[in-house]
């Protein structure tokens, strides 16, 4: 029973990772940029919500109404000032620029808020500690389920946007071939900035759930970036639903690992990540070659 409980908790944890990773996946798919400041931006969102809760007694989920548009604007500015330039300069520059940005943001937060760990859990009452009890003595937290549901909803929303809306078509066209997109009337620059804004909106939401489910401090960003990145890569870079799967695999691996050893939580996650990477690089290629050789024999 313990294992089933762990797997279930891992699944729900995966929902959080998918939520966190959705923005990273979206930006990589659309802009071909890996934003190393991703985790730090989620932490910025968490701090904004904390300020609203602490000063104005605003419930975090209500606080999102203000923070999401703010982060969207920040994303738009981020693209215009930093990402647009760096994308033109070659593949290395976006990595360096966003890494520098992450360092700046982490340390500015430290300047502003100090080293204390914070959490939004005190501001959400039962949502934070209430749970349903399933047969077999398995307890499932309200917050975990809500996180998972929000992750699925967000990923679904992004999917619908990209596949079934005019803006989505423009985003995909500009992502594939910005020059030709211009030729049919798509303002590629503007579309890329909008895509960044959309990604930042998901980061804002992720930051809220990060703060509600656990504690955070100015240097939480990098760890979150790594989790998001692992979820994206495990599920297959460029696929939105793959990110959900990747998040779940990571969550389950971590939960199972925690059962084995207290350090196992993180180690299992990283090990599974590297394992999937290896498998994709060697085994997947090998399987494809094996199938091809079968066809050649049959011919």
């Amino acid at each position, binding site marked *: 029973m313990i294992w089933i409980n762990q797997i279930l908790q891992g699944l729900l944890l995966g929902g959080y990772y998918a939520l966190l990773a959705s923005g990273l996946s979206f930006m990589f798919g659309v802009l071909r940029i890996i934003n190393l400041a991703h985790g730090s931006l989620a932490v910025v969102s968490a701090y904004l919500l904390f300020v609203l809760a602490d000063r104005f007694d605003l419930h975090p989920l209500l606080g999102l109404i203000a923070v999401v548009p703010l982060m969207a604007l920040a994303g738009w500015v981020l693209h215009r000032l930093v990402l647009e330039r760096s994308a033109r300069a070659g593949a290395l520059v976006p990595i360096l620029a966003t890494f520098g940005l992450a360092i700046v943001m982490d340390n500015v937060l430290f300047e502003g808020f100090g080293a204390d760990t914070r959490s939004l859990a005190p501001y959400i009452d039962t949502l934070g500690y209430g749970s349903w009890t399933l047969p077999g003595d398995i307890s499932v937290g309200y917050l975990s389920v809500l996180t998972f549901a929000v992750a699925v909803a967000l990923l679904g929303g992004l999917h619908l946007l990209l596949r079934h809306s005019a803006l989505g078509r423009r985003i995909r066209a500009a992502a594939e071939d910005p020059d030709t997109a211009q*030729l049919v*009337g798509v303002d590629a620059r503007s579309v890329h900035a909008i895509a960044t804004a959309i990604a930042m909106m998901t980061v804002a939401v992720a930051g809220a759930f990060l703060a509600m489910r656990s504690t955070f401090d100015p240097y939480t960003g990098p760890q979150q970036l790594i989790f998001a990145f692992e979820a994206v890569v495990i599920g297959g870079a460029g696929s939105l639903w793959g990110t959900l799967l990747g998040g779940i695999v990571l969550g389950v691996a971590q939960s199972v690992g925690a059962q084995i050893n207290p350090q196992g939580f993180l180690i299992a996650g990283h090990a599974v990540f590297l394992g999937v990477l290896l498998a994709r690089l060697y085994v997947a290629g090998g399987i494809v070659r094996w199938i091809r050789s079968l066809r050649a024999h049959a011919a």
Partner: protein
Amino acid sequence: MSLLEVRSLEARHGLLPAVRDIDLSVDEGERVALVGANGAGKTTLLRTIAGVHPAASGRIVFDGKDVTALPAHRRCAMGIALTPEGRRLFVEMTVRENLLVARSSGRAGPWNLEAVLQAFPQLEPKLGARAGDLSGGQQQAVAIARTLMTNPRIVLLDEVSLGLSPIAVQGLYDSLRVLLEMGTTVVLVEQDLQRTLRVADRIVCMLEGAVVAVGRAAEMTREQVMGHYFGSRSSVQHPAEARP
């Protein structure tokens, strides 16, 4: 006043001049063909007019307005549309999506999905297919149809028959006849000289980035045009006639 006026236009690839001091006017309803050997600068000229290649100097005036500094998508909104060399479809998107995204020009006009499918009926069964999976001829049809969906005032066609079988090219030009009969202004680059002389009103010969000859299609012969391909001032002579 001409619909499109190009004055003293220069464009470069890095430091190499590709388009040198070109003057060109296109009236509304005219059909102009650019001919010349590879490397003559025809594609670069079209791309510079469309706005995807920067002009080093000179001016481009469209419908009385100076568009030289405008980005490509704004020129598309004004009615300049280019079907680029090599088709350049959004291969990961479906045919329908490729066509619909061209509505981003925001222009009103006779061309919509139904009208375009009437001109290119071979595309109807392929609407849901991935653009990258189509044959060369079908892809070219999508590329031209996509250009039409922007409801352009002037259509720039760059080597639309390149790499296609004669049957496919014929099919393409059958579809284009609709466009031409509507009186749309067209500037085309085409290697097939016979077809060019039939379709165009005016021929502009380019060599090494400059215009070397201009004439009415009805008055020029194939031999004269080919002469300008290689830079001879007079028409090509039969080797037997060249002996004193």
